[in-house]
Each structure stands twice: as C-alpha cells, then as structure tokens.
C-alpha cells in the first residue's frame, strides 16, 4: 500500500523519525486557512502517488494568502502523469542547508534488507544511480541481526555525508530502520533528507509503501483511500479485487497471477489484446467470481470476456456457481468464454452445462479459449 507524502511523514513522526509537520487540505479555502495558520513562506505540495511533482509544477512556495490561494487553486485539480490532484499538503517552507538521500527497502535479489544513502539528495536519484553509482552507498542488513551502528557508519561515510552531519544522519538512519521494521514497510524512502540551518536532520519528503499482509498488526484502514480515476479500477478497489486496467478489448478473469499473466500473453498471441488483468486469487468464492464479472463487463471497451480457471485451492463448482449467479443477477452484455480445469473441474463444467446461457461459451483448453474470446471480441 503506497502512502501519500504527508501520510508517510506522519507515520515516520509517530515512529520517531523527524519529519516536517503541516496540514492537509482538500479545497482551496481549506488550503488558504491552513496557510494562514502555518504562516509564510509556506510550501504547497500536491499529494499524488507519483514522482516528479516538482517539475510538473505540483510544489509551490507561497508568501501571502493571495499567492497561497493562487497556487492551491492551480495545484488542486492538476493532472500529474495521469494522477488527479485532489489534496495538497502545506508545511513551513524549509530552510535547507544540505540535501541527502536515504532509503530502506527489500532487496529480493540479495534476500536481505538494503539501506542506501547518498549526499546527492534532492535530485533524481535514479539519474545519480546511472551516472555516478559510487555516489550511492549501499549496505545490506541481515534481518536477524538488524541495523547495527556499523551499518550507519558505513552508510554515512561511503555515502559522502560531510563530517559535521554524520552523527545526525546516522541517528536518523537508525530511527528509519526501526520504523521500516515496526511499520512493516516494504519501502521507506526519504528524498530529500535535509539539514536545516540549525543543523537538524529532517525528512522533507517520504515515499512509504506498507505491506498489506501485515494488516493483522498494523492499522492500515486509515490510509485506504481510492485514488483511481478509472471507473473500473474504482469499482474493483471497492470490491477488493486485484484489477488493473489495460488498453485492449478482451476482458480477463483468472486465478493466480502467473496464470492470468499467461492468459494475457496467449490472448496477444491469438491476435487480440487484453482489456485488463484480474486475478481472483486462491480459493475464490462464487461471490468473488460474480463481482469480477460485474466489474469487467462494466467496461465499455470490453467486447468479450475470458474466464480462465485452473483449480487448486479454488474449486471448479464454486467458480461455476459464481458465473451462473452473475449471469442471473447482472446483465452481462458480452459473450463469456469459460475454461475450467483442475480441482472439481468436472463438477464445475456440469453446473455450467446444467445452466445454459446464450452468451456462455465453454472451451476445452486455454489456447482454444483465448482464440475463441479474440474471435468473439472481433464480433466474428
């Protein structure tokens, strides 16, 4: 779960990492009122889950109520790389004497946690990684051992942090790692980590990704907002479905990320293009299947729907019942091609056979199902 800048910073502060304080606002009036409370100069920052806000004009510093109103009005409603700005964050304009980069994340390849620090913060860090990789210090942390003083020492020295700021940055790194663990974060990235003119080390921005698997011990609901502008993505999120909009016309429903990805590929190989990715996961219930059909069929681009299920934990009869229920309950205008194999597939196929529908097509194999769906989408 990706957090907005200000949500991430609030969590960091709760976890003991110093970060700039401020107020969020959803309207221009709210923003101006917040600016008045905070005082000037005040930074007004678009809250979107995408990088490059500054270059896109999503961050402005206002020095009066008038300019605050002007900037808030410009930023709210702005489209930044397809993300609609519906909220801004206001904080005192920072008094920056140095800007660094610091992050903790999971290195799948090394199978350890990875800490990174660079004295070249406040800029596009991927560019630094490409042009001057030695400017970014990396340290792997054994999850059993945890972050030790020597990790911090190595990061601040090899990352080029000036001598006078090493102690302060090392302290913040130790706090960041503790937050990374205690928040169940997959990513905790601070760029820039600034030094103020009084020598304080503070997170001025934060990109925080939390692990939704840890929901049983973290309160994530407070961050569960739906930012998607696409109507199917909104509907899918509301129903808790794992849905991604794509640009084709064959709606896809499958179980297991691997099989769904493979289904997208075979649709392309059959000459079509998938309209979406939708993984119903393991052990999908009839209701989940019905919800999925509803979301996919609501997309006006979708001309045919392909359901590709290979049962393991998911049982064929549940899938079939879900399809029958959805076709009974909702008006599904598109033809639906169903391919069912694996656990209780015979029972599932029987249920479909016992409940014939005019737009329901059975296919014996995945490739045949893909070809059929592509053919139907073309109106053939």
């Amino acid at each position: 779960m990706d957090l907005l800048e200000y949500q991430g910073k609030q969590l960091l502060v709760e976890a003991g990492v110093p970060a700039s304080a401020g107020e969020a606002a959803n309207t221009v009036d709210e923003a101006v009122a917040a600016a008045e409370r905070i005082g000037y100069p005040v930074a007004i920052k678009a809250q979107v889950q995408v990088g490059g806000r500054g270059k896109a004009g999503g961050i402005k510093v206002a020095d009066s109520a008038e300019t605050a109103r002007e900037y808030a009005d410009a930023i709210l409603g702005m489209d930044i790389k397809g993300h609609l700005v519906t909220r801004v964050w206001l904080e005192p304009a920072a008094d920056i004497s140095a800007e660094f980069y610091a992050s903790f994340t999971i290195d799948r390849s090394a199978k350890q946690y990875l800490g990174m620090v660079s004295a070249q913060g406040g800029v596009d860090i991927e560019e630094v990684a490409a042009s001057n990789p030695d400017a970014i210090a990396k340290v792997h942390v054994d999850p059993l051992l945890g972050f030790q003083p020597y990790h911090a020492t190595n990061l601040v020295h090899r990352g080029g942090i000036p001598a006078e700021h090493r102690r302060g940055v090392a302290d913040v790194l130790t706090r960041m790692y503790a937050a990374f663990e205690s928040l169940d974060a997959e990513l905790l990235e601070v760029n820039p980590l600034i030094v103020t003119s009084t020598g304080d080390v503070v997170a001025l921005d934060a990109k925080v990704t939390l692990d939704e698997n840890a929901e049983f011990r973290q309160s994530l609901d407070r961050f569960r907002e739906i930012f998607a502008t696409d109507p199917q993505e909104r509907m899918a999120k509301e129903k808790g479905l794992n849905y991604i909009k794509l640009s084709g016309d064959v709606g896809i429903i499958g179980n297991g990320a691997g099989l769904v990805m493979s289904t997208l590929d075979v649709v392309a190989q059959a000459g079509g293009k998938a309209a979406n990715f939708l993984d119903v996961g393991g052990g999908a219930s009839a209701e989940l299947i019905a919800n999925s059909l509803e979301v996919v069929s609501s997309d006006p681009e979708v001309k045919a729907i392909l359901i590709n299920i290979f049962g393991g934990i998911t049982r064929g009869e549940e899938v079939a019942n879900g399809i029958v229920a959805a076709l009974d309950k909702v008006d599904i205008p598109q033809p639906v091609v169903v391919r069912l194999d694996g656990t209780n597939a015979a029972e599932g196929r029987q249920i479909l056979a016992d409940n014939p529908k005019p737009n329901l097509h059975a296919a014996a194999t995945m490739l045949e199902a893909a070809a059929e769906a592509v053919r139907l989408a073309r109106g053939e």
Partner: protein
Amino acid sequence: MAIYVDENTKVAVSGLTGKEGRFHALRNRAYGTQVVAGVTPGKGGQDVEGIPVFDTIAEAVRETGANTSLVFVPPRFATDACYEAADAGVDLIVCITEGIPVHDEAPLYAYLQYRGVPMIGPNCPGVLTPGVANVGIMPTEIASPGRVGLVSRSGTLTYQVVHELTQKGLGQSTCVGIGGDPFIGQFHIDVVRRFNDDPGTDAIVMIGEIGGDEEERCAEFIAAHVSKPVFGYIAGFEAPPGKKMGHAGAIISGSKGTAQAKAAALEAAGVEVGRNPSEVAELAAARL
C-alpha cells in the same frame, strides 16, 4: 527417483485441525503420502481420522519419525511454525500459507539458510512426486509419473504446464511450486540443481515470471552446470509494468526483470523457451 518428497517422506502437518489443513492433508494421505502427524498446540492427544495430533513438532518428530513439515497455519502464526520445524530437525519444510508479512519472511529466510534447512514456499502449492507422494495442495489428477522435472513460481501456472505435459505423454519426476513471495526458501536455481543431480529426471521444465532476477541467475547456473535438456516458459510479456512508487527498487534492479530479458537469458543459456504453456510442453515432447 524424485526430489524433496518420495516414499520415505513422513509428513507432520502444522494446522491439521484447521479446515484447509484437514482437507488437503487427508487428500495427501489418500494419494499415498505418509501423513504421520498433526501439530496443534493444546490439541495433543486428539486425532484427525486416525492421524495423531501433538502439541509440538518436536514431539511429533520424536513419536512418529516425521521428517517433513507441512505448514497450513494462518499467516500470523506461520513463520513461528517454520522456526519450530527447523529446530525440531525436519529435513524439509513445505509452507503453503499465503499472506505472510515480508518482515516475518525475511528473518525466517536468514534463519533457514543459516541452519541449512530447505523450505518450499511460503505461498506455494507444494511438491508433488506423481504416483508417490503429494505434500501440499496441487491437484494430482493432472499429473502422471515420469521423468520430467518441473519447477515454477506460480501455482496455477504450474498446474497448467503439468496438465499440458501429461496430455502430451510426458510424465513428471517431481513438480515443485516454489512460491511467489520475495523470501521463499528454495529458488529456481536450488530446484534445478537437484533435478540435475536426480537420476530419475531426464529433462527440466522451468516456469518463470516477470520480476526479480531469479530466472536470470538460474540461466547462468544452467549454462555452467546443467547437462540435462531444459525447457523454459516465462509469463508476463503483456503484463503492465509494475507500479513502483519509490526509486529504491529501480536502483537495485536496474532494467532487469522483464519477460523479454528473462526469456533471452534462458535462450542464451541453451534453454528452449516456449511462448505459452502448450508450446513449452510441445518443445519438450518433440525433444524427448
């Protein structure tokens, strides 16, 4: 012959008294697997259709000679069961549980590496040696005994390929679903190494996906060490690029991890790569 599980496998099921654990453990036993014990703290002394239940894995191992731990417990308790199994001295852990937090998986991975205990999963369908033993949740009716070893990250995609192989007359020595989480216990490379050393396996089918660099590493290993024919399939050519918010991930991985890059790495290592599950089975059938 087989890898990981065979006729000597004796399974202790953590979470046997739960709904999923009971369902699949009894299916595993019905398939012929020696399911010798269940483990549920506080339920020691009970039994599930004749399978004795113990309070601790240590007791299950001592009393029944269990050498394999099959874990079905919910995410918040799953890594604890895996630690316990490792300390109890089993030879293999198969952890089916999906949804374990990554900050629980990461230290478990380190511990098992240090202790030298292999784990399949978490978030995996388990291991099936057709005709001999099934430890996990794979549907068995699609598999048939034979001499092709199969390894895959994805559950259902594994079933799809096993199904295609069986339909083309290629039985399997062992089918291994290693799981899709960042900190799984055994990676492609570990499984391919075992297949290469297994006298019961003549050829290897390796299924990959976008993300990470495990398939690329495995390709290097294949080029250097594997003498048996290897057939590959990578899913995700049409997949949308993963949305990653921060930059740290991009710094670590560079531009690796695409299906194109993985397929190219496998082909460069001499692996015949199919474009879809049917094609990889056809390539194997044509060669074997």
